[in-house]
């Protein structure tokens, strides 16, 4: 199983039945494929709807029903549509239960960086889109990212190097190796890959963290949870 699937299966366990959920681009979009039995959630698309459904078939796209990527979607029964002010009122106002976002970096203070490749002005960043609103607004922020970059450097840092999306906003960090909770501005290791020791996690993680007295093996929806 690749890292992306591992992470999506773990992230699915963060969702409770009936929750309103916003999923960022990339890895988080796979999460609904792995919802545990009995858990159904309502997906918000920040361009203006709740109750997003699957992609329509060729020639059956509705020209006025699309997701935040400009791609055609369907709406499930019980769906609702609203303008962008309302959509971000829902987000900023704390009405979304959980947002699962991809991170470029995350750090031990709960800062997340996921919009600019670096902090320099001539970086040609694509822009923050709705990410800054989401990290300030959703009740629970789950940051998903691979534990290390291609050169093996930790993406779970003492302090983000990239321009941050929000400070002290992350509640849960999920990598393919470990799960951390962010509590009072510090990390607690709550789950780890069964094949790795706490020392192994320490050696591939730049951030400091404490270890939960209740440390568990890494759980994955549909596999061992």
């Amino acid at each position: 199983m690749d890292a992306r699937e591992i992470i999506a299966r773990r992230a699915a366990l963060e969702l409770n039945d009936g929750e309103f959920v916003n999923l960022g681009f990339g890895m988080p979009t796979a999460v609904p494929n792995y919802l545990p039995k009995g858990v159904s959630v309502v997906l918000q698309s920040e361009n203006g709807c709740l109750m997003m459904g699957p992609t329509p078939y060729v020639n059956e796209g509705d020209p006025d029903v699309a997701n935040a990527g400009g791609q055609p979607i369907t709406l499930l029964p019980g769906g609702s549509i609203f303008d962008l002010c309302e959509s971000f009122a829902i987000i900023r106002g704390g009405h979304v239960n959980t947002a699962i976002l991809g991170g470029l970096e995350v750090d031990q203070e709960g800062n997340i960086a996921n919009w600019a490749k670096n902090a320099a002005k001539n970086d040609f960043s694509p822009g923050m889109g709705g990410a800054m609103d989401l990290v300030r607004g959703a009740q629970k922020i789950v940051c998903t990212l691979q534990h290390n970059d291609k050169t093996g450097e930790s993406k779970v840092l003492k302090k983000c190097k990239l321009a941050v999306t929000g400070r002290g906003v992350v509640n849960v960090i999920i990598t393919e190796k470990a799960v951390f909770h962010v509590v009072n501005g510090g990390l607690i290791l709550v789950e780890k890959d069964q094949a790795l020791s706490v020392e192994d996690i320490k050696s591939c993680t730049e951030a400091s963290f404490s270890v939960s007295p209740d440390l568990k093996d890494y759980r994955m929806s549909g596999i061992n949870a």
Partner: protein
Amino acid sequence: MSKVKTIEEVVAKLHDGATVFLGGFLGVGAPLKCIDAIAASGVKDLTLMSEVSGMPGGGFDMAILFKNRQVKKIITSHIGTCPELLEEYKNGRLEVELYPMGTWAEKVRAAGAGLGGVLTPTGVGTLVEEGKQKLTINGKEYLLELPLSAEFAFIKGYRGDKIGNVQYRGVSINSNKIVAAAAQYTVAEVNEITDVGDIDPNLVGTPGIYVQAVVQGYTFDEHKEVFNTRWESINALKKKK
């Protein structure tokens, strides 16, 4: 006093250097026919204001305006989806001013609603803070974000009547309803122009008080075809088995 006009009439009102809202979100709910007419008009040095930029893949929606080098500046939340825009930006010919998506929407709403600004927690502790007044309310920090208005707004509705009432359909309401209120001259491109009284008052998304002109866009059948063709061309629709 019908507000129904031709697209040529309304586009002729633009001038080099104009500030222009474009409604829509990555092409969905975009005033496609007006955009084409703006491209054909050759007007230049535009400041565009759009919640996000063109539909991923390029060659659609606002992309032509960047390809033609008609845009001097864009005020938006995201530019990563429109290759023609990025080309202009990387070549140093385009100024980009970024706001978080929800902040962009609130700034435009504030302009339409006569507010002097709003306090938002979004962007506190980030680069977005730069140059902005910060206020602490009940121990929590907020940024003061100021109104954003324009001379012109081009919006896309489903139906529009002769006094400017606009009904939206689906998520195409997105930024259209917001920018309609914040421009001096708002043009509604619609799939269908109706008689006064044909739109149920409960279904009016933008009342005529905000709209100066109503123009005929693609008919609804054409509109469906334009999007299904586009989406098929970028493999965004599921293949039937």
